[in-house]
């Protein structure tokens, strides 16, 4: 299968192009569409309400209006003036970005090696990595915490990141995708005098870009919303990630729901924008995980 064919086959996985044969309007179809559409409205309603509340004055927040009578950005001014949200945002962004880059590189390198090299111990390494999928993070947080304490990693970006710099799931996913890269390509590159690292990086990796983008999105989203480990490993509010910071902030505010909703909106908006911009890739990523995972 050539590169182009490969991309084409990945594109057909996009559910945006449903099969549909007749375009006639039938009552049953209209009802189905209407119910599905209303269901979709119900699904996004909580998020719409959160956004709407973040633009309301305190006395207005308990009414059920979606469009505020007198919209204000006062809540955002208050929350952002605090300054911590900005820091938490930057922390989350740095941590999620570095972890994503690291996981994409290592997971695809390991996946590639386990897929395309023949050597003794290959199966042992593969099964060992795969078996770590069965170890829940929650079991490891206590030993990790003790490790971080002993090595002085508490309260550092590295402390938050180290458990996630490689993922077993990503390795498995990438190995599955490298199966579809023909060995002839690699052999041709070898004859051209490229070394193994160059072959992986310049020949194999470009052939699996859809898989890489899917993996990148998942790792990023996972780290962006991660809660329990950053909660445990950070003591310094300067180093909180957005979810941990949001918890702290909300407990402090207790009743000022418009401020809590503003904080929640600030934590949500970035991923929603990412989704709206990269919708196609994200959906395709989910689809590929479902089919290959």
């Amino acid at each position, binding site marked *: 299968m050539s590169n182009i064919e490969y991309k084409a086959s990945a594109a057909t996985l996009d559910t945006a192009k449903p099969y549909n044969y007749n375009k006639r309007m039938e009552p049953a179809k209209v009802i189905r569409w209407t119910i599905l559409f209303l269901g979709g409205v119900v699904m996004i309603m909580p998020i719409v309400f959160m956004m709407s509340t973040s633009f309301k004055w305190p006395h207005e927040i308990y009414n059920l209006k979606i469009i505020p009578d007198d919209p204000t950005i006062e809540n955002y001014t208050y929350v952002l003036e605090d300054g911590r949200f900005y820091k938490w945002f930057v922390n989350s962004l740095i941590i999620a970005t570095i972890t994503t880059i690291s996981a994409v590189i290592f997971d695809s390198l390991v996946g590639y090696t386990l897929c395309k090299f023949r050597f003794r111990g290959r199966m042992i390494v593969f099964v060992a990595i795969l078996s770590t999928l069965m170890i829940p993070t929650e079991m490891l947080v206590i030993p990790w915490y003790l490790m971080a304490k002993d090595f*002085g990693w508490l309260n550092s*970006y590295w402390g938050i990141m180290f458990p996630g710099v490689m993922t077993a799931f990503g390795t498995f996913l990438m190995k599955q995708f490298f199966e579809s890269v023909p060995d002839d390509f690699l052999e041709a590159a070898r004859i051209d005098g490229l070394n193994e690292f160059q072959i992986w990086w310049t020949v194999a990796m470009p052939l699996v870009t859809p898989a890489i983008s899917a993996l990148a999105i998942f790792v990023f989203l996972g780290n962006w919303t991660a809660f329990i480990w950053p909660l445990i490993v950070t*003591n*310094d*509010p300067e180093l909180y990630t957005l979810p941990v910071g949001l918890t*702290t902030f909300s*407990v*402090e505010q207790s*009743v000022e729901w418009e401020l809590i909703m503003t904080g929640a909106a600030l934590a949500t908006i970035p991923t929603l924008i990412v989704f709206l911009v990269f919708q196609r890739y994200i959906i395709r990523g989910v689809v590929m995980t479902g089919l290959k995972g």
Partner: protein
Amino acid sequence: MKSWKNTLMGITAGATIALSAGASQAVEIEYWQYFFEARVNAIDTLIEKFEAENPDITVNQTTFPYADYRTKVAAAIPAGEGPDVVQLFYGWLNDYVEAELISPLPVDAFPPEQIRAEFFPMVQAMEKDGQYMALPTAVRSLALFYNTRLFEEAGIDGPPKTLDELIETAAALTKTDAAGNITQVGITTGMNAQDHHWVREVLIRQFGGDPYTGDYQTVTYNDDAGAAALQWYSDLQNKHGVTQAGFMDEPQAAFKAGRAGMHIDGSFRIGALNKTRGLKWGVAELPAGPDGTQSNYSSYWVNAVTTKAEGEKEAAALKFLAFITSDEAMQIWLDTVGELPAKPSAGLTDANRADPVFGPFISGLAYAKTTIFANESGQRQVLMDAMQRILLEGETPENAIGIAAAEEQAILDGYYK
């Protein structure tokens, strides 16, 4: 990242010293407390004054939400990550002393006889083997906050003086909507806030009981008095319908929002309420019991120097601790936070006693009891659960208090065994 920052700061500091040879090196110490806006502001003010007097010392304040504070402190200090001076709840100190994480205060700078004479007697619990381990800036007691606007609206002339009057007053203040839901409570309730102290040290005593033996190692409230106290407290919701647990998520939130007529809280709430615009409120002593018994609960937070502070950091930490427990600091604390000075000489002034806001708290202090907790959050949970059993599962107060007593005794036994 942090270590990178430190390195950079180290390099910068090194360069500065090299350039300005002879300049004395600044000592930087870390101060920790939980997040409560008024307390944070008070410490900020104190740090500013302290740094002006001691230009060679820099104090950094770090805060955590109350819910995480104990965890964060306990995790950080043994790891050598934590503060040089730390604020701890009086009930937690023992654990830290036993784990040798707290340095005793040197006798020459903090003479025990003087402290014994000057501070409120309850602070003596901080003395161990002839040395004080920690000192408070302020002490706190409970009082009844009431919303004066809602009182006027309901035509009530003053706060209730007894528990019976409290029920009448609360009934007049309660509002419901067409569907029968409470939209304004007469009095807030919630064991998760200060009510567990009210029940434990005040109501149980007012109904003729004693919550614990003198050493607080044995629970003694599993009797008629305990059951009567819990009965009275749960009747506020179940029988009189003047309150609702969980109303507006938190009791103080409902009072702040002007949706509660009365609210029992500590003196530390004063600062926050003062800042709430449009809220008019007054303070009264806690209502007396059926036989006229008055009681109150007092507690305090102490400042301690951790074993992490060594050498010149320890000297700076001790200096800072002495400063924040001085008379001057106590007055600043009273003005900013509303917590009462830990020394009678500073606290029991005529001006403070006559103050309409501080007065009831100071009067309450005279007959207050201080619970010695083995595990405050665990013991609080026991009373929270007892209340949930009555409200949500229809358990009788007699059974609920029995279960609570057994559970709390298990916590105490586990701690003191």
